[in-house]
């Protein structure tokens, strides 16, 4: 196995044994990026010399016997939705093409403190709006398992970077499935922590009440390691919760026994690809063989999850994105003849089609006369969706199902059909609306060789249990060991 195909945990022990150093590891990944990026297009910016400087600083620290962080020398790719001090942060938009934040996102600070090597910023759907990464203003990222297909989205760049072994770890953000869905389509592990588990400070907001940052990795152990680094309270985010962070990376290997798994019948409805269903059923067999009890549960209000999501998320987005007006920073249209004209031209030219569509939807939903019928109603249904989960978790440890109804689709296949695109998040959205934790882990491949993901959901702040349940399965299977040929 090549160095770049290893997990972060493996790289860490190689470094501890003195087999390899941070500079060699970083160099190996930079080389992979140089070789594979023309095909995969996962990254928006890679600053090779900066990455090498970080790596050599870590090697120096090690040489001097200094205490090193848990991710010492491990390259991590960052979704370009996260602000990095002094480095361009575009959010996949022309609007922020030249935006250089004067601050690091909280998770970036945590990564630096953990001595990780920030290797580059990854591609994404503009302002995290999309499920295929085709909405990026800059490039279309390819699925490393089939370059004609999408990697999922909106964190498609971060998922593809790990799947293509251009980085062992990456960070994404998940508003309606933007971590779990691309993880599923790229055959890797991706987790959306409970809302409030990870500080959103420095995460460029799409929908503030739904956004959450989370890890991508090859396996569950690495996911636990990265989550442990980024989780925890931050004074700068009032919605981040003051709660101790369990030692996920230590407990991840302990199976959950007894284990009751809930199967929501709504997750196995029409629209589910038979091959995906077959993989999920096989995974359930593995759990049964491990002694798990499997129960049917119902999440009746989840059928409203997609419409509720497209009201709540777009409403918040319409306000969150109002600040991009060409006045203070970011893109300003070159010619205009009045203030309003400057606003409309800057926003008209700076935003892409999907972003504009969602701003319009959200503005409409919040408008007087429509607010009660749309936004207020959506908030009520959101509460009912949460109550569905409360009931399910009262009798089950976790809830399972497919992450995405289909494997990766072809580039351009749904680009002109927003509704079809929105439905690719049908199983992931309710987790964000309920504010609970969710993970997608590899659970097989279709005949065409496309990865399939198993989604596991757990109650609020039950990440520890979620990781242990995921790891139980992973320990019995080898899907997570596969790497695409590139």
């Amino acid at each position, binding site marked *: 196995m090549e160095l770049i195909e290893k997990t972060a945990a493996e790289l860490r022990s190689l470094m501890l044994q003195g087999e390899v150093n941070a500079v060699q590891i970083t160099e190996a990944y930079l080389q992979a990026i140089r070789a594979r990026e023309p095909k995969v297009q996962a990254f928006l910016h890679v600053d090779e010399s900066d990455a090498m400087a970080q790596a050599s600083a870590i090697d120096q620290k090690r040489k001097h016997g200094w205490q090193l962080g848990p991710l010492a020398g491990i390259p991590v790719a960052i979704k370009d939705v996260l602000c990095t001090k002094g480095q361009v942060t575009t959010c996949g938009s022309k609007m922020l093409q030249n935006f250089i934040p004067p*601050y690091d996102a909280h998770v970036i600070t945590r990564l630096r403190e953990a001595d990780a090597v920030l290797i580059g910023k990854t591609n994404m759907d503009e302002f995290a709006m999309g499920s295929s990464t085709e909405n990026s203003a800059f490039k279309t990222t390819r699925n490393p398992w089939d370059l004609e297909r999408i990697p999922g989205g909106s964190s498609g760049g971060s998922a593809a970077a790990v799947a293509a072994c251009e980085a062992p770890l990456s960070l994404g953000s998940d508003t309606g499935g933007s971590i779990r869905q691309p993880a599923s389509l790229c055959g890797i592990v991706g987790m959306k922590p409970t809302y409030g588990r990870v500080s959103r400070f420095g995460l*460029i907001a799409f929908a*503030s*009440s739904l956004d959450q940052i989370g890890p991508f990795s090859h396996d569950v152990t690495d996911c636990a390691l990265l989550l442990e680094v980024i989780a925890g309270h931050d004074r700068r985010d*009032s*919605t981040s919760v003051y709660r101790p962070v369990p030692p996920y990376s230590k407990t991840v290997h302990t199976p959950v026994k007894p284990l009751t798994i809930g199967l929501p019948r709504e997750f196995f409805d029409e629209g589910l690809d038979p091959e995906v269903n077959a993989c999920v059923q096989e995974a359930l067999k593995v759990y049964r063989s491990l002694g798990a009890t499997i129960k049917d549960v119902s999440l009746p209000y989840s059928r409203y999850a997609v419409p509720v999501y497209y009201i709540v998320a777009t409403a918040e987005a319409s306000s969150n994105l*109002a*600040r991009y007006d060409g*006045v203070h920073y970011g893109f300003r249209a070159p010619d205009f003849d009045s203030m309003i004209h400057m606003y409309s031209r800057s926003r008209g030219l700076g935003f892409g089609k999907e972003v504009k569509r969602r701003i319009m939807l959200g503005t409409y939903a919040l408008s*007087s006369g429509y607010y009660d019928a749309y936004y207020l109603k959506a908030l009520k249904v959101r509460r009912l969706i949460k109550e569905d989960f409360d009931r399910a978790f009262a009798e089950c440890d976790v809830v399972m199902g497919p992450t995405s109804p289909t494997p990766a689709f072809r580039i351009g296949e749904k680009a002109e059909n927003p509704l079809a695109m929105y439905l690719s998040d049908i199983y992931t959205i309710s987790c964000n609306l309920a504010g609970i934790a969710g993970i997608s882990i590899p659970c097989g491949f279709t005949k065409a060789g496309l990865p399939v993901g198993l989604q596991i959901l757990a109650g609020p702040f039950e990440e520890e249990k979620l990781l242990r349940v995921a790891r139980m399965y992973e320990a019995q299977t080898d899907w997570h060991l596969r790497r695409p040929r590139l």
Partner: protein
Amino acid sequence: MSRPTPYTIVIGLEVHVQLLTRTKLFCGCSTQFGLPPNSATCPVCIGMPGVLPVMNQAAFELALKAALALQCNIASFTKWDRKNYYYPDLPKNYQISQYDLPFSTGGGLEITTPHGPKWIGLIRVHLEEDAGKLLHDETGRGGDSLVDLNRAGTPLLEIVSKPDMNSPEEAKAYLEELRLLLREIGVSDCEMQEGSLRVDANVNIRIPPEHAGGRKPLPGRQHVATPIVEIKNLNSFRAVERAIAYEAQRQFEEFQETGKQMGEVSKATAGWDDVQGVTIVQRRKEEASDYRYFPEPDLVPVEVDQPWLDRIRATLPELPAARRKRFESQLGLSAYDARVLVGQGLAFADYFEAVARGCGDAKAASNWCSNQVLAVLNERKITIREFPLSPEALADLIVRIRKHNINAQRAREVFGIMLQTGDTADAIIKRLGLDVSFDTEQLRELVRKSIASNAKAVADVKAGKQKAMDALVGFVMRETKGKAPTDEVRRLMDEELAKV
């Protein structure tokens, strides 16, 4: 005073005051006035991508303090909302404010009117962030406008009154009382010049049917009511008074022409031109502006429990209204005197109380404070804290004036010397030889002597020439080298003349 009009003015005021916090409402930037443009800013208050607001606890507590002083009902659960609108002085293009669940509702303030005290009710008090300032090219050549975001994010209290005021004078009295209260409790410095107090006035008039030129009130109303106009940019209390008076008359005249009543046309906004002394109606809002309010997802709701409220309440000083009542009931002052003393602010009223305690004569202390002391403060443009005489020194003067029967004019002379030299009243009185005391019988003897020696003057007084009294009193004053208390001499003179 306004002249009688055939209509009643109805006024509701929306007052914005900046809170006296060290830092802004949702970030750590300074709120100091007058810093170089954009120097008191950070990624949060200039609305950069990905940053988040964090509520300033001190600002919320000051707001609670104000609401308690205004006798509002404090909500146990309150939340933040976004008010969405585009303007270059609003970096996020939304303002974090409070919409349907403000932290306080109700309450009010008592003002003094010529007809007695009047309660002005409040609808609500809520907390929000201020916007920045735009600096436009004043040359008229259409240059770029500049934005200064130092003010953006400053905590702002919005105090919305009921339409309970019925004259420009009442509006002014309300603002004065509100300013006094907020200053006393340390919530705001209420400096209109610096923009820490801003006023918008909602004005319309009610016309009794007999003056409505044959137009009938709309169904359900007893009066004809004109459409409400909101007057913006009122930058002094005087401007508030003048603008309201002007606008009321303008509405009356407009009504004669158009006959339009409230509800028939929408609410309008007007500006006030202080130089021309006119309101300028800018636009009629076709419908209420659509600010697309929704709950602010970046902040958590605030829960206010009783212990917290009790803790804030304990920090409140005696409020002006209560103090005025105490001055009247406990110290026997007139309502007018109590208003003057309390109206000068906490420190002044404290000074007065110390003087009153020291001399044991509240009425005399009140006269000295609201006349001589206040005159000196105004003349020297100083505050009571900088006034050179301690309350003990002034109390001592008052005691000695009484003891030595020193007349008002000489007393003022002693006061003046005390201010100049810093000497004690005792020393100055001795120096001037005023420390002689005359007993009444001694004076009465001199009065009788004066009457006996001035037959002509006595006759003149009897004939009704009061002027002649001066000669009789003057005799006694000469005999005592001017040290006799004139008032007492006059009183005795009246008594003795009556016997003649």
